[in-house]
């Protein structure tokens, strides 16, 4: 079953002469339980696709289907229970004045859960943070710990599809590996589907099953990771990208 279907997606910013077309005619599908990567250099529009799916980039045309739901301008609450996002910079994605407990508690409250205490405890265990982190503030946490809190927040509504916007690029290499392993474990445990954006081919080949290569707002090639590992890219830009990453 298809978890995510993107058809002829265009995303733009501004209007008139200032209009910038960030994504042009993107097509791809992600099967349920699959992990799909979007790869490209900075400004190629890969993060913009995530923001369009999550509803944070309001100007788009084309079709987005999530778990059988066709999306319009406004996202229903059921959408936020199905799709969640982890942001790139864990230093910017947590409210500086809210403790971990407040962040997770408010999220759970907004999704209508009433057994908040028990769920906060379970979420922190799920992402490998103990109870001693529950009442800390973001400035008392390291980058990797913050990203774990952000992942816990995304898991709180028990989503099916997780949008990962370069979740490890702001972290140290050793911490990157920990977070990637955590993401792999969580996918296995919760049966999640991932759509992951990255500019790092090794990260993508570690986490993803298939990937799309983007350049200047267009998807130039979709391939699976086996092809990536054997350097069997067909499009010249993908080959160039592969060469550069060795």
């Amino acid at each position, binding site marked *: 079953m298809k978890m995510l279907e993107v058809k002829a997606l265009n995303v733009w910013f501004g209007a008139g002469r200032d209009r910038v077309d960030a994504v042009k005619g993107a097509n791809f599908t992600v099967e349920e339980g699959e992990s799909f990567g979007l790869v490209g250099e900075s400004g190629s529009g890969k993060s913009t696709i995530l923001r369009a799916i999550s509803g*944070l980039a309001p100007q788009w045309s084309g079709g987005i289907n999530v778990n059988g739901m066709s999306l319009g301008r406004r996202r229903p609450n059921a959408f936020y229970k199905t799709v969640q996002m982890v942001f790139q910079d864990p230093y910017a*994605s947590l409210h500086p004045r809210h403790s971990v407990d407040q962040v997770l508690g408010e999220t759970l409250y*907004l999704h209508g859960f009433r057994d908040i205490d028990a769920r906060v405890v379970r979420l922190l265990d799920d992402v490998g943070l103990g109870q001693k982190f529950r009442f800390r503030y973001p400035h008392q946490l390291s980058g990797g710990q913050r990203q774990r809190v952000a992942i816990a927040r995304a898991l709180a509504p028990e989503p099916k599809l997780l949008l990962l916007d370069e979740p490890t690029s702001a972290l140290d290499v050793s911490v990157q590996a920990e977070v990637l392993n955590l993401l792999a474990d969580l996918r296995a445990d919760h049966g999640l589907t991932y759509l992951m954006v990255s500019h790092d081919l090794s990260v993508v080949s570690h986490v993803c099953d298939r990937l799309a290569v983007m350049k200047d707002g267009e998807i130039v090639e979709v391939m699976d990771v086996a092809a990536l590992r054997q350097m069997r890219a067909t499009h010249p830009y993908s080959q160039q990208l592969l060469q550069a990453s060795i």
Partner: protein
Amino acid sequence: MSDRQTLRDWLLTETPTSRRHAKLSALYHGWLTFRSNSMAMLGLAILVALVLTALFAPLLAPLDPFEQNLSQRLLPLGAENHLFGTDSLGRDILSRLIYGARITLYIVALVALIAPIVGLLVGTVSGYVGGWIDTVLMRVTDIFLAFPRLVLALAFVAALGAGIENAVIAISLTAWPPYARIARAETLTIRSSDYISAIKLQGAGPLRIITKHIWPLCISSLIVRVTLDMAGIILAAAGLGFLGLGAQPPSPEWGAMISEGRRFILDHWWVATMPGLAIFTVSLAFNLLGDGLRDVLDPKAGD
């Protein structure tokens, strides 16, 4: 280990065990930062003294602030049981200053309640909602800002009638636009940040985002700005009193006292100088406090 030490350790722990514990711990950390700033502590001490003076004015004042004695008018400093001398009607200046602390606090409290709250509401709504609401609210703010503050306050007082309450309302009405501007500027930077996007993805509405996520971040800079503006507010109230539009005689408002003393300033300098020093001290205390609060409340300064 003594009890005191364990309480300190409990407050400074890196691993709070409950919501209340985390709150208290954060407060204590803030207090430690504030305490290390000795100038801010001086400002706080002066303001605590001012509050105590206002509370216990009848006990502290040596004489009745309204009792006139024309045979003892314009006595110099230190004259027989008039430490700060007497004014043109023979009233004890020290007692009047002590009772005047109440009026000063009253003005400060009312303005501090009205102006920043109006400014916060206007600024955050304007900044978050944007569009034509932003345009309308900001043009209204511009109109208020275009008038010289004291002139606008004069117009309001003229319309509402002279008196300390109306002076406070007039000052508040002229004081909110800068707060609205600050709150709007802060909101514009906050609303595009990732943590606001993240809470939007939980389905939170604008009301929740503004009150629970934007206000806590705007309030700290507003509090700092209010304490720094307090000096100006006290001076504006004193200015209105000086022009005869604020506190009415025989009320011992400090600005009105300066205005009375002005007539004798060449021969009897203390009549105007003593209330002037009081205004100066309180204004300075608010400025020092504001400086210290900025260090504590800045959310980016967290260690």
